[in-house]
């Protein structure tokens, strides 16, 4: 053991550069791995911890009635259901509302609670995170704290079509209703403000039920059943609801994106690091055949020599992993701040033993395995043979690119000779460049579809987008439409109204009703089959269809308002909004189940139109008939900015990482090549080759592998990136992804990748100038 240790130390001393490069790669891999494990275990579990801490509900339901009759019905119903373990009912008001946030607007179902009533709830507790002694005003979810939304400042909240100004008193956290991603969002009002709102009649008095279940996995079906029971009891009530399943996923979309990308990065970097280790060992054996033979001759066993290598690389890997892990703890706070802006759930970073030790175990385990596999041939080294022949590993079978017959210019021909005789190097280059081209294509895709123009991304995630959404009572619908059609600012107007329906035998679905689907902006929502055209057609979420084995052409029965009707499936849809639980109906189709009492219209407005002013005018004209107006454009900006900045960070990080990786891998390869070919370079210099020629030859010898793998990699990745993204987004309801693959960007980036590889090699090969023909004399 001691001997192995001494050997390992001398090996390390001889290869400082390689050691450093492997160290950095291992460090990156370990930090990614640890980060990924932390994100996907404890960070994700934080939701459950918070859920427990706040004794949160598994199903939330808000019904816009709060008379005793309704409340008694609710209590009876909830007590009857076997899954119910505990619940609390609280007086509230609910209404679609919005407020400014991050340069955009947040619009969601707002549930107004009286502060004291809210704080005394037994289920679905609210945690005041920031408080002040301001006596009159509003408390917002902690997620919406920003420079503009700070304690003491005023905020304008739209309630339906009315605007109210409140002073911000503080911030709170509610696990199931603390973000627009929960599909409903609580806000607390001090008692005076609550009474004011009650008296204004802007928002209907409602009852908020928070129910805890025996099994949280049943939350979705429970939610559906409960809603059905309520609406069959009183078809006129409007209910809004969510479930544990929905919230636990939708609040963690950014976590999912981050950990998906980080896990992929961790995997690839580890792979590259291991390849580098393996080729390093193979080279070491080749270079040191004579030394190894000598060592064996003086009595070292093959195992001792392998142990030395194991010690050496395990040492590097352990040290690198430890440092990498501390770096991941250093990076976590940034990631945490990024993600909190989407999850809205505070997370306290602390030491996590499982990811820590698992990372150590994985990185040292695979390193040991790779070292063992690639160093086994040491056992076969026979001392006499090794001593006598030294380098025996050259394969002289073929004289690649014979100078006698080739028409290729001399420098290139010599480079190609090297290329063909250095297959190990080519493989390492290829794998590295394949990984890097995947990264380039991915970052191109994200830049194009999220950062530069996020329409494709929002089409995918949000579904339909327009400039404005106006909800109007149906009695005045005709007059409204006439006015809109004569308004020059309105470029397009169409019905786009969501109601909840139930799939008989299944769960609740959000049905979107449109008078003519040809008018909707996002024609990609239906990605297979077509939009429903006739009153007996329906398009349903692909994810849901898959789970329930429903095919295009099948008939399904939908229920709403106590009525049932059968529809033929005309196509599949996908949006992440309802996590894959939505469907599309024509208006005529929905009429078979009931009538609409109000209708939401989507409008495209001309570019110069000030959407808010436009809304004011409409409200003035139609007065009470206008229920809500939503500035969709600014809402999109608001909720999208989170994703844009997250993506931007991810893209920049992966690009920086890929530059680092390519630099280190190439450094290692060039170094190895210079070592192996030092004598050849000396001879060639003596024969009259200049340093420039030799540097170019070195760089050219890498280029075939670099170019080939970059081209193949970019092409293949461009083809598979959409399915791959869809695969990652599957859990939020995305089945098929049709992001635009930016060919120009990818071609440009590939060229840059190849050029920078070339330049880096030249830079690393710059050392050739130090090789003098005189060094040939050294052997004398």
């Amino acid at each position, binding site marked *: 053991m001691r001997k192995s240790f001494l050997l390992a130390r001398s090996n390390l001393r001889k290869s400082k550069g390689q050691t450093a490069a492997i160290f950095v790669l291992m460090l990156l891999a370990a930090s990614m791995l640890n980060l990924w494990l932390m994100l996907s275990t404890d960070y994700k579990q934080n939701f459950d911890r918070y859920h427990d801490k706040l004794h949160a509900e598994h199903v939330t339901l808000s019904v816009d009635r709060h008379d005793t009759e309704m409340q008694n019905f609710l209590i009876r119903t909830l007590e009857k259901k076997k899954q119910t373990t505990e619940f609390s009912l609280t007086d509230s008001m609910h209404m679609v509302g919005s407020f400014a946030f991050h340069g955009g607007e947040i619009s969601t179902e707002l549930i107004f609670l009286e502060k004291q009533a809210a704080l005394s709830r037994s289920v679905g507790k609210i945690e005041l995170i920031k408080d002040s002694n301001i006596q009159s005003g509003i408390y917002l979810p902690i997620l919406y704290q920003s420079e503009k939304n700070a304690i003491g400042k005023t905020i304008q909240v739209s309630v339906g079509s009315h605007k109210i100004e409140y002073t911000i008193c503080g911030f709170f956290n509610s696990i199931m209703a603390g973000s627009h991603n929960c599909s409903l969002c609580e806000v607390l009002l001090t008692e005076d403000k609550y009474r004011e709102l009650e008296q204004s009649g802007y928002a209907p008095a409602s009852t908020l039920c928070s129910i805890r279940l025996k099994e949280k996995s049943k939350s979705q079906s429970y939610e559906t059943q409960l809603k059905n029971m309520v609406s069959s009891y009183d078809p006129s009530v409007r209910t809004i609801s969510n479930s544990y399943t929905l919230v636990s996923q939708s609040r963690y979309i950014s976590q999912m994106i981050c950990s998906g990308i980080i896990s992929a990065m961790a995997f690839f970097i580890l792979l590259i690091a291991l390849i580098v280790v393996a080729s390093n060992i193979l080279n070491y054996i080749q270079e040191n055949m004579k030394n190894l033979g000598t060592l064996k001759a003086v009595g070292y066993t093959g195992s001792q020599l392998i142990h030395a290598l194991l010690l050496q690389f395990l040492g590097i890997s352990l040290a690198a992993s430890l440092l990498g892990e501390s770096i991941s703890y250093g990076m976590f706070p940034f990631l945490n701040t990024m993600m909190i802006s989407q999850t809205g759930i505070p997370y306290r970073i602390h030491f996590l033993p499982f990811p820590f030790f698992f990372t150590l175990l994985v990185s040292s385990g695979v390193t040991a395995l790779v070292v063992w596999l690639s160093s086994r041939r040491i056992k076969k080294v026979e001392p006499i043979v090794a001593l006598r022949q030294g*380098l025996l590993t050259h394969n002289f079978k073929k004289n690649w690119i014979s100078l006698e017959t080739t028409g290729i210019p001399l420098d290139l021909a010599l480079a190609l000779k090297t290329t063909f*005789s250095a297959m190990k190097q080519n493989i390492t280059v290829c794998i590295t460049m394949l990984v890097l081209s995947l990264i380039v294509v991915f970052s191109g895709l994200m830049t194009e579809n999220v950062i530069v123009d996020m329409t494709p991304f929002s089409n995918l995630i949000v579904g339909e987008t327009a400039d404005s959404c106006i909800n109007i009572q149906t009695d005045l619908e005709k007059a409204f439409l006439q006015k809109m059609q004569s308004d020059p600012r309105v470029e397009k107007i169409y019905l786009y109204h969501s109601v909840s329906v139930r799939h008989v035998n299944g769960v609740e679905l959000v049905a979107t009703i449109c008078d003519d689907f040809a008018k909707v902006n996002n024609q990609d929502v239906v990605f297979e089959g077509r939009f429903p055209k006739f009153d007996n057609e329906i398009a349903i979420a692909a994810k849901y269809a898959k789970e329930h084995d429903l095919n295009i052409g099948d008939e399904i029965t939908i229920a709403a308002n106590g009525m049932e009707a059968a529809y033929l499936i005309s196509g599949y849809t996908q949006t992440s909004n309802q996590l894959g639980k939505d469907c599309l109906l024509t208006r005529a189709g929905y009429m078979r189940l009931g009538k609409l009492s109000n209708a939401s219209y989507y409008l495209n407005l001309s570019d110069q139109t000030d959407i808010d002013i436009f809304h004011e005018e409409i409200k003035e004209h139609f007065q009470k008939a206008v229920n809500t107006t939503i500035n969709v454009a600014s809402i999109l900006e608001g909720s999208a900015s989170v994703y844009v900045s997250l993506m931007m960070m991810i893209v920049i990080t992966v690009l920086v990482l890929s530059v680092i990786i390519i630099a280190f891998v190439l450094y290692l390869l060039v170094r190895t090549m210079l070592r192996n070919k030092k004598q050849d370079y000396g001879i060639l210099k003596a*024969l009259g080759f200049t340093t420039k020629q030799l540097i170019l030859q070195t760089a050219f010898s890498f280029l075939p592998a670099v170019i080939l793998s970059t081209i193949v990699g970019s092409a293949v990745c461009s083809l598979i990136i959409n399915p791959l993204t869809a695969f990652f987004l599957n859990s939020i309801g995305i089945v098929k992804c049709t992001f635009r693959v930016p060919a120009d960007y990818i071609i440009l980036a590939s060229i840059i990748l190849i050029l920078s590889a070339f330049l880096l090699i030249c830079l690393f090969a710059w050392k050739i100038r130090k090789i003098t023909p005189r060094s040939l004399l050294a052997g004398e």
Partner: protein
Amino acid sequence: MKNILLKTSQLSKSFSSGGRLQHVLKNIDLELYEGDFTVIMGASGAGKSTLLYALSGMDTPSLGTIAFKDQIISTLNQDQLAIFRRHHCGFVFQQIYLIDGMSLMDNVLSAGLLVIKDKKILLDRARNLFTAVDLSEETWKKFPAQISGGEAQRAGMVRALINHPEILFADEPTGALNFKTGLDVLNTLTDFNEHGQSIVMVTHDMRSARRGNRILYLKDGIILGECNLGKYIPQDPARHNTLSAFLSEMGW
């Protein structure tokens, strides 16, 4: 009167080893002539190789100038020296130094293509030279590891001569060879010299030295003396005696 091919003045070379400056060559003034077979002799470590590499532009002197014909080469940078070498010099090394990864032919052509752009002319020359050193066509395709030391050194000579060098430098070309193959190599060198090839050869062995027409003796960093033997005649006892006398005078 012979033409001067190489001329040094005040040529010095020092190495710093372990912080100490070691003066290997001291103010050497030397002229080498066209058509000569010059031999540099001296004990091991005398600085013979150092002198040879300085003369051939493989290395730059610490002080002094070296002129090749009318061109001062001691002020050239590394790349300019490389270009100078490919056009004017050929090298034969003791360790032969063929490139392992290439066939013998490609070893020769990789040097030849640097200068001779016409492939046909180049190939003709290579074939003629290979034949001249008595290497058969099937050997050309072999790799250095597949042939004997003597064959390798003869291939090395083909490579050295491929570009019609004005001067051929040989550093103990027979040092790594056995008697018989060493003899072949010497015969080949003598043969080329008789056809007008200027040669500078370093050796510390009398049998090799006898081939030269001009013998220089290097000791303590200076040319201690020189001896002219005239045209090489095999088995010439007078030549042998002259050389022996010269060497013992030099303290050999």
